[in-house]
């Protein structure tokens, strides 16, 4: 099923125990997630660490992929993240609002060695508060925590800012993998479990001939 663009909540797995009573109903949630932040803050590195477990010292600016996906199991749900790539549109501060309008979650990434990237991160938070989905789960990630000796943004400062703006905060390192899975796991836990009311969900056009064949490899 091509479920791109939906915040779908389907009961997928029903576990039946020995007494044949339904003891658990595990929800399967597909969400669109976006990563925002300055060029070079490490958005792609964080995603690649989470999705592929890789880290490249010189990650090139990303071109060519529309999104990555990765599935996480949390206590009561299986969450499939569809992580949309900014496709370089943030490079000259020209990201289209459509990129984050339908997103259910966002990680705003800055580089702890750059105060400028932290100010840019705050701008993204404002932008999301203004234009994004009001129920969006937002996380602030201070990336490159392995570069402690070059730190110029204090963790306490960022934490205070995050608390004031209803975000949760973690310092991450895509290089050492510190807190990368954790931040996605935290988001998965915080996502609302109830289905979005019908009138807020749009429909995605389905190409009856073409999509069935392409559905299995939906990165395009």
């Amino acid at each position, binding site marked *: 099923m091509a479920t791109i663009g939906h915040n779908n909540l389907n009961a997928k797995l029903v576990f039946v125990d020995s007494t044949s009573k339904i003891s658990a109903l595990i929800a399967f949630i597909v969400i669109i997630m976006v990563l925002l932040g300055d060029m070079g803050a490490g958005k792609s590195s964080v995603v690649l660490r989470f999705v592929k477990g890789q880290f490249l010292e010189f990650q090139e600016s990303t071109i060519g992929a529309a999104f990555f996906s990765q599935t996480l199991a949390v206590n009561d749900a299986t969450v499939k993240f569809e992580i949309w*790539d900014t496709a370089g549109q943030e490079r000259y501060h020209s990201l289209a609002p459509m990129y984050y309008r339908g997103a259910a979650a966002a990680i705003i990434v800055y580089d702890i060695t750059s105060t400028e990237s932290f100010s840019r991160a705050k701008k993204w938070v404002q932008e999301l508060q203004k234009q994004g989905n009001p129920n969006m789960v937002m996380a602030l990630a201070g990336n490159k925590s392995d570069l402690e000796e070059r730190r110029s943004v204090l963790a306490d400062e960022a934490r205070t800012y995050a608390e004031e703006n209803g975000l949760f905060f973690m310092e991450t390192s895509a290089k050492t993998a510190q807190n990368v899975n954790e931040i996605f796991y935290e988001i998965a836990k915080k996502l609302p479990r109830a289905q979005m009311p019908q009138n807020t969900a*749009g*429909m995605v056009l389905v190409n009856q001939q073409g999509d069935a064949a392409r559905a299995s490899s939906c990165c395009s």
Partner: protein
Amino acid sequence: MEEEKMPDPSTMVEPTKFDLIIVGTGLPQSIIAAAASTVGKTVLHLDPNPFYGLHFSSLSPPDLSSFLTSQEDDANVIDDAISPTHGVENDVDYGVVSLSSHNLYSNVDISSHNFSPSSRFWLDVSGPRVLFSADSCIDLFLKSGVHHYLDFKPVDLCLIYDSHSHQFFTVPDSRNAIFKDHSLSLTDKLCLNKFFKLVQLHLSGDGDSGNVISPEDLESPFVLFLEKNKLPLKTKWFILYAIALADYDQEDLQASKHLLSTKDGIDRMAMYHSSIGRFPNAPGAMLYPMYGQGELPQAFCRRAAVKGSIYVLRMPVTTLLADKGSGLYRGVRLASGQDLFSQKLLIDPQYLVPQALASSRPDVLRGSCQNSCPRDMKKVARGICISTTSLKPDASNLLIVIPPR
């Protein structure tokens, strides 16, 4: 490059040579950006505004007000610092021609409004309001893959205003709906049904039944054809204005150049008919992008970006650069002062290319040359009304048609 205007390093565009530079992120330019980058061309897409879509955008009420008023003034020269002499000036390396734009909006009147702060909505600047499900643009969304980025809403209901009775009537969208419609008399219903059968027969015809509607009738105004088939007034209206979506007063036979021909009218009825039920979750004929028409250019731009196009908003182009010897187009100068070069240039029709450059080699700048002479300008009166509640409490998306008369 001019020494005195060193660009801000954060907005230095890299690289500096492209196959295609596009100015303006309106829907046509965005489609071309997606197409060109998909076939492997290097594309730089610029827009002077802080948002995508230009005249095809959807803006919040305050942003719409400021956009319309900013576009309202007379012949808006983009950069006053550069003297708007409409000729080729000589720079150190290139002939430079300043680029100006003409106003598209006049007599903008915004009455005071009182929005509750919780209301988050966007208004379409222009562009089409609704799309037929069977329209070729929907095929383009599917073919190019931009449908992955778009959420649509079906139009639940279409209402047409009857200026005689001062009432709104629901436009029946199927034969079943016609028979359930209590506002139509039985004779009207039979007439309409007969007419629909005739049209269907005509459309299904291959060769031999091509004479169902005579060639003379097909060339005649659609309104006369409807009258010939004895369709009652109300029915005639909704076919003309709510199904065929005719723009002009069709009952004014004097203004013949705006009259829809029977052939076109029937094609539009066919479009309406094939739109119904194309997508299982959209029962009616029409779709609407959930966050407004402004999503459409954004989706194509996103597609282009995924394929490698570079996007720079808030970046006006002040000047076109021409080769000193031949006068051929070479590149553009940005408001930041940076010069960028491309094989081809595509600019929004709101820009005026000064005659000097355009006429020097019309074969090179043919498209832009048309821009420089907006002779056949027409004005369209548009209004946006915001109601506090839906006109029909049970329908969240409805289309209201107010016939010209």
